[in-house]
């Protein structure tokens, strides 16, 4: 992958505290590759995360970062986009933060279609708290909180996203960073909410869904697959146990983004207005405001 920028510009001096072999390393690398490929400088992007192992990611880059409270990165990222639509806003969080604690926000991001790229580090377990079953854990999965095996059916995030109106739905695998980077590029280029669910082994606490487990099941979508076909995407999203498709399952290019439909943004954004005031201070510009309150 020949990139426009050197990925080193996204490096940070912070010590990475992920477990050795964690799939999050590949996601971090793929994100840097994607931004470098698109020529997006660190100050032109914002990475918003929640709580969890994967949510430590903003700390490990020089990109603007915002680590929010548990499950809340999507509304905060939406707010950041509304304040400054010139910013490339990327949400990175785990399956628990996205689909469990932040499940409500996930649904509404899908239907609102804000121009966000949402990368979900889906390791099918709560890793930071040392191994409890998560919304995407398969039924029967044994953990400290499900010693007899999880009795709940796993959430299928891609099906939920398609049903809720998401306009870009993709799946990557941490074991294939180049393919994942390409998905992130397409997600950033998509105008609207882009979900990229990344299968990411937790090598310490999930001994079922390992690199080997995923490798033996994943396959890339066929060349003749049409991601504009919503029904076909729905059917693809049902595949899981024996074969798991990777790639862009669904993409709708026609839907306007949330920001496109906010009337006030057609005039100016809050950040642009604030910058204009800061750059061109003059007593006269406050007269209309004073008149309003006098």
């Amino acid at each position: 992958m020949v990139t426009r920028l050197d990925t080193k510009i996204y490096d940070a001096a912070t010590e990475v505290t992920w477990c050795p072999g964690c799939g999050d390393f590949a996601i971090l690398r793929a994100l840097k590759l994607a931004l470098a490929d698109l020529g997006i400088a660190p100050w032109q992007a914002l990475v918003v995360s929640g709580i969890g192992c994967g949510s430590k990611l903003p700390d490990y880059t020089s990109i603007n970062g915002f680590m929010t409270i548990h499950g809340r990165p999507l509304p905060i990222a939406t707010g950041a986009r509304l304040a400054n639509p010139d910013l490339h806003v990327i949400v990175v969080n785990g399956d628990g933060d996205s689909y469990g604690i932040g499940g409500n926000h996930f649904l509404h991001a899908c239907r609102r279609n804000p121009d966000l790229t949402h990368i979900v580090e889906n390791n099918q377990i709560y890793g930071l708290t040392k191994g409890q079953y998560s919304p995407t854990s398969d039924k029967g999965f044994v953990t400290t909180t499900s010693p007899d095996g999880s009795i709940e059916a796993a959430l299928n995030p891609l099906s939920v996203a398609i049903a809720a109106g998401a306009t870009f739905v993709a799946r990557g695998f941490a074991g294939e960073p180049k393919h994942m980077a390409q998905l992130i590029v397409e997600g950033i280029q998509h105008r609207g909410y882009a979900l990229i669910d990344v299968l990411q082994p937790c090598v310490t606490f999930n001994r079922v869904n390992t690199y080997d487990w995923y490798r033996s099941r994943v396959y890339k979508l066929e060349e003749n697959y049409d991601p504009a076909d919503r029904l076909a995407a729905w059917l693809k999203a049902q595949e899981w146990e024996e074969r798991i498709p990777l790639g862009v399952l669904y993409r709708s290019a026609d839907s306007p983004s949330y920001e496109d439909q906010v009337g006030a943004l057609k005039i100016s954004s809050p950040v642009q207005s604030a910058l204009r005031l800061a750059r061109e201070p003059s007593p006269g510009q406050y007269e209309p405001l004073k008149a309003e309150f006098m």
Partner: protein
Amino acid sequence: MNYGEFVGDVQGRTRLRSADEAEAVVANVFRAIAEVLPHRNVEEMGGSLPAELMVYLRGAHEEPDPYFDEHLFLGWVVSTIDATGSRDKTAGGLDLYAHYSGDEAAYRCESVFAALKPLIKDGHRQLILSALPEGIAELFARA
């Protein structure tokens, strides 16, 4: 050397308690090698290696992912280190198990490489060495 002897050799080097554990390490290291070794280079080694090991290597891709790095390679091996059901080893925010699992995984990789190197020709050693990610290649060279 047959497959059983190879696993036994790895078990001796890694000091693992059972042949099953050693076999899991062998399988994961070879599957990780298959992630980086181009498929066209695999069959050449067929005459030197037990058929069971060739099964793992035949999973190699036509074009390996160029960004498959040291972390990903170790990931295949870290998952052979058993933690399920063990007590919580958290100490002051530091998970000692996770902290040392990288060292243990590197040691296991090196042990498999040490068992593998005498079995293959120098040219094949060079093929594997050139395909491995940077930090893992150092382990291979040192083994």
